[in-house]
């Protein structure tokens, strides 16, 4: 196993921050070694300095992708934490649909939702399922569900809509599993109708949000916890910019915007909090 020196720790953590926004302090030396060792050795590197040089010089960015996959956490579940989905179903979506339904009956109701760190897609597919159950026939709606993530591998899996039994069983009720997934071999695949509601693409949340447009709902749950305080402020400020004036922001259940972004005001509904612009 390659040993990482204090200088190399600083070098590598700075590099990881640069490519992903993920902030690791020097106490995370152990995490770096356990997660990066296999990649560094496979690249034939003798030291982490060597590894850094090689990653920087790699025009194909293959090493960079591997580092992001190794460092980022893809812990996600279908309907992780039921509260936000009940909040969507019983409060946010009905309110939004009321507000967005056009006066002209022939026009479709627009609805744009963004899962800012969609990981392998479970959160966004859960939103799609809630929408489908709530609205039934979607032909009168113009629904756009976007999922973005820093990891190409996570995006690829999200796009495939395929999950193994460990990824699928927890959180997903049996009736929803039967209704929205089919078993092919050892994996479960989301059905085409739900699949066609969503889009996934790579995005680094540290970069400007150009070309994303405005959203009615933004889910940014359990990702800012990996960022520095400064980067959190920048992130939520940018989210405030792309949220519709009456739009909704959902963050992780143990996260807080206190001291992060004064443009948002928390509102409580039953057991959940959501945020709206002041």
């Amino acid at each position: 196993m390659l040993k990482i020196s204090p200088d190399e720790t600083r070098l590598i953590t700075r590099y990881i921050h640069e490519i992903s926004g993920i902030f690791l302090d020097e106490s995370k030396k152990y995490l770096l070694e356990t997660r990066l060792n296999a990649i560094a050795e496979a690249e034939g590197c003798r030291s982490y300095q060597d590894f850094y040089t090689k990653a920087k010089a790699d025009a194909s960015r293959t090493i960079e992708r591997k580092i992001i996959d190794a460092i980022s956490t893809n812990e996600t579940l279908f309907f992780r934490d039921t509260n936000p989905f009940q909040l969507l179903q019983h409060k946010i979506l009905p309110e939004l649909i009321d507000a967005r339904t056009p006066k002209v009956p022939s026009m479709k109701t627009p609805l744009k939702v963004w899962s800012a760190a969609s990981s392998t897609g479970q959160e966004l597919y859960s939103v799609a399922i809630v929408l489908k159950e709530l609205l039934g026939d979607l032909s009168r709606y113009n629904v756009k569900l976007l999922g973005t993530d820093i990891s190409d591998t996570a995006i690829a899996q999200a796009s495939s809509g395929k999950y193994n039994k460990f990824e699928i069983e927890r959180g997903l009720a049996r009736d929803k599993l039967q209704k929205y997934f089919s078993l092919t071999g050892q994996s479960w695949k989301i059905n085409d109708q739900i699949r066609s509601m969503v889009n996934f693409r790579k995005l680094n949340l540290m970069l400007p949000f150009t070309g994303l447009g405005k959203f009615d709902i933004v889910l940014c749950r359990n990702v800012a916890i990996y960022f520095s305080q400064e980067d959190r402020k920048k992130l939520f400020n940018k989210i405030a910019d792309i949220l519709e004036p009456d739009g909704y922001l959902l963050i992780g259940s143990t996260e807080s915007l206190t001291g992060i972004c004064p443009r948002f005001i928390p509102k409580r509904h039953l057991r959940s909090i959501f945020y709206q612009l002041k």
Partner: protein
Amino acid sequence: MKTMRILVTDDDPIIRKLFAKRLRQEGYQVTLAPDGSEAARLLDAMPFDILITDLVMPGGIDGIALLKRAKEISLDIEVIVITAHSSIDTAVDAMKKGAVDYLEKPIHFDELFLRLDKIREIKSLQKSADDLREAIQVTENSAAQTIQELEMINSNLLIKIDEMEEILTDFSQNAEARIERALKILEPR
């Protein structure tokens, strides 16, 4: 998981007896079924960790149909199919449909025991992961309640401070009136 509950389905009574004897010697709980219909009935009636089934059996329910049935009842049931050497393709097909492994006839029991050990190991790791997740969830829920409470209190206090600031700097009124109005904001609503 101390011992695993295994359902063995094979139409050959000699093979059934052999499975029962060898698996029980190893400490497994064994139930036997002579055909697919009886096995399906047993799967409905009681929980099993593992189903070992012959692929080719007389009657309406063959090995593949039984595999599907078992997976419908519980995704946790691991299925091992038994196949003749000549029909490896069918065994591969069974694995595509969710079987965890296949055994070729004649059965090498030492090989089967090794595979059962592996399955037990994976199931036990899975259980530890589930337990940990559960523990995290409990901690997270409790933290979330506290954080939500603080977030709302903090937000309300900030609003009150803004209101007080506005009143206190409203110099159209005299100091006494301003203070009186400002103090009103601190009263519980």
